[in-house]
């Protein structure tokens, strides 16, 4: 307990200010997960640096979601070490684990909102559970979070069943962000959204990540998301992960990776990412010629 307290009080700059950008915030070594006789991960190593957006991809059934569920403790690993914020998960007591849980946010596939609570009450749950904020401030923070994820104010008092799929995801994201988590785990955040909704959600995550200095780990099938916001990508093949930027991964000889990034959809996503980057570049140059460049913007 006291060890956890001193660790979480180490100085820093970004987010809630306890970790420095670029430091290894999460590392998994020698992980083995198994359901009955089926081995999902074998001797898997995986790490995430603070302040980056890490995409996790892989074919169906390669254990992308299982990897996330294992890291956040919903799944028991057969072997291996999971270290988050410098703390070994296996060695944590209940109280230390609760403290840790306040420092990560999880967005499940369909939002996993509590169906008996309104959206506002859903966002309030982690605040009530893990902090002693006074009610008035909690109420204001709910307003801030709702606006941050782009939900209209009248959604606050609706129940999850009254929302569309995209709105449920936004509400789920607001709940995951309720405590300004240091790490955000997203499980297929854009699955089931239309392309425009998916693109909006991507840019929302990108904006929040930059503004709040978040570290994001996202499982996705969406190639556009990978190109749009991910700094590095982990590919699950042969029960291990291969990590790198997309350019690095495209040089991997593995047939699945080649097919994934080199296939028609991969090329299309790469093309559109390039086009939008060029547009951004042009727009930026345009802005620069109009206004004097601002320091550190």
């Amino acid at each position, binding site marked *: 307990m006291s060890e956890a307290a*001193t660790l979480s*009080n*180490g*100085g*820093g*700059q*970004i*987010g*809630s*200010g*306890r970790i420095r950008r670029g430091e290894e915030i999460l590392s998994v070594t020698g992980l083995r997960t198994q359901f009955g006789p089926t081995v999902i991960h074998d001797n898997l190593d995986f790490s995430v640096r603070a302040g980056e957006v890490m995409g996790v991809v892989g074919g169906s059934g390669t254990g992308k979601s299982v990897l996330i569920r294992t890291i956040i403790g919903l799944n028991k690993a057969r072997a291996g070490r999971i270290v988050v914020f410098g703390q070994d998960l296996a060695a944590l007591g209940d109280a230390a684990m609760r403290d840790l849980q*306040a420092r990560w946010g999880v967005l499940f596939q369909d939002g996993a909102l509590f*169906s*008996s609570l309104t959206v*506002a009450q859903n966002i309030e749950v982690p*605040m009530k559970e893990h*902090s*002693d*904020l*006074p009610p*008035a*401030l909690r*109420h*204001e*923070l*709910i*307003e*801030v*979070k*709702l*606006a*941050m994820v782009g939900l209209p*104010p*009248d959604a*606050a*008092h609706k*129940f*999850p*069943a009254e929302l569309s799929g995209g709105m449920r995801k936004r509400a789920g994201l607001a709940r995951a*962000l309720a*405590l*300004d988590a240091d790490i955000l785990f997203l499980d297929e955040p854009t699955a089931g959204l239309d392309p425009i909704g998916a693109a909006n959600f991507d840019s929302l995550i990108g*904006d929040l990540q*930059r*503004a*709040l*200095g978040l570290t994001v780990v996202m499982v996705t099938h969406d190639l556009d998301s990978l190109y749009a916001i991910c700094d590095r990508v982990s590919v699950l093949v042969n029960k291990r992960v291969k990590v790198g930027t997309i350019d690095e991964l495209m040089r991997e000889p593995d047939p699945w990776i080649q097919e994934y990034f080199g296939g028609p959809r991969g090329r299309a996503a790469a093309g559109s990412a390039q086009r939008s980057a060029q547009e951004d570049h042009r727009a930026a140059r345009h802005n620069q010629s109009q206004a004097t460049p601002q*320091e*550190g*913007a």
Partner: protein
Amino acid sequence: MSAAEDLGLGAGAASTLQLRREGAVLRLGFAGAWTTQELARHDPVLRKLDLDGAREAVVDLTACSALDSAGAWVLDRTLDDLKQRGATVTLVGSTPAIETLLGTIARQHCELPPAPPPDNPLIAVALRIGRETVRIGKEAADLLSFLGLTVTVLLRTLLRPWRIRLVPLIAHMEQTGLNALPIVGLISFLVGIVLAYQGADQLARFGAQIFTVDLVAVGVLREMGILLTAIIVAGRSGSSFTAQIGTMKVNEEIDAMQTLGLDPMEVLVMPRVFALVLVLPLLTFYADLMGLLGGAVMATIVLDISFFQFARQLSDAVTLWTFWIGIIKAPLFAFIIGMIGCYEGLQVSRSAESVGRQTTRAVVESIFLVIVLDAMLSIFFSVIGV
């Protein structure tokens, strides 16, 4: 500056708020990590900030080591508040990162509409009574039309018996009948014991202990056997019908069924209702036996009436009609329990909570209707004199 350094060394990243007044200038120093966990201490102070004539406020972030979105919100609100009250506000020592975050928060904040206020308690009670009355009326009408539908489908199925789905029928018979044997048997046996014991106590005052057998026989065969079995089955199987069908409804399985041309009435409701109608008379017969056995055991132990005497007294006490009156009611009750279980299941909306609510409703309604019907039948049988 030295204060900030002290902070850094002393309390780690913990946050402090320094308030200093220099003439007409109010200095606010935000030092340390202004994060969600720290705000509970500072929020009340910042809300009740006293300008006390100060015309100018300087907010100093030089010693602020970290700021998250909650901290940024509190900072932004404080700045706004000071401006509103007519002070000139200057922000000192903020970094580009903090500026960006502040900008994001300020741009995106919007007031929520107030939560719908709770009604006046008196009006709320009246509203609830009214709403429930309307709901019960509507539900009664719906149930009646569902009864019509069930009977129609039932008759249609009986005309074409090859359309009865045998595998689910047998599976449901096993679940609702065979698997209920232990609990039904145990409860009937215990009730037989209770009846015999209490009856013997009272009848002993007249020296008429032997009539305990009559009491047990008539009580168990006419009423207790069937009523207890029906109540147990309503709690056990009626609720599980609702939960099964309700969960399928939540998963859109019922919709899928309809698009595949399968009629949920035929696929889901019929096998369940049929199974229950076939099984409940059998269960009742078994419950009768166990109840009598319980009475007989008690009679042997307490009253010294042997099994042989018990049997002879039993054949004097009851006619075959006593037994049949109990059994006749079984298919009726089974139909009610099965129908309500399925009906409530189909009423589930797309949330986990409503599965629970409808299940409760199914059990309460079916037990209620079973007892009402039983009372009506009791009167009916006594009028026609059996």
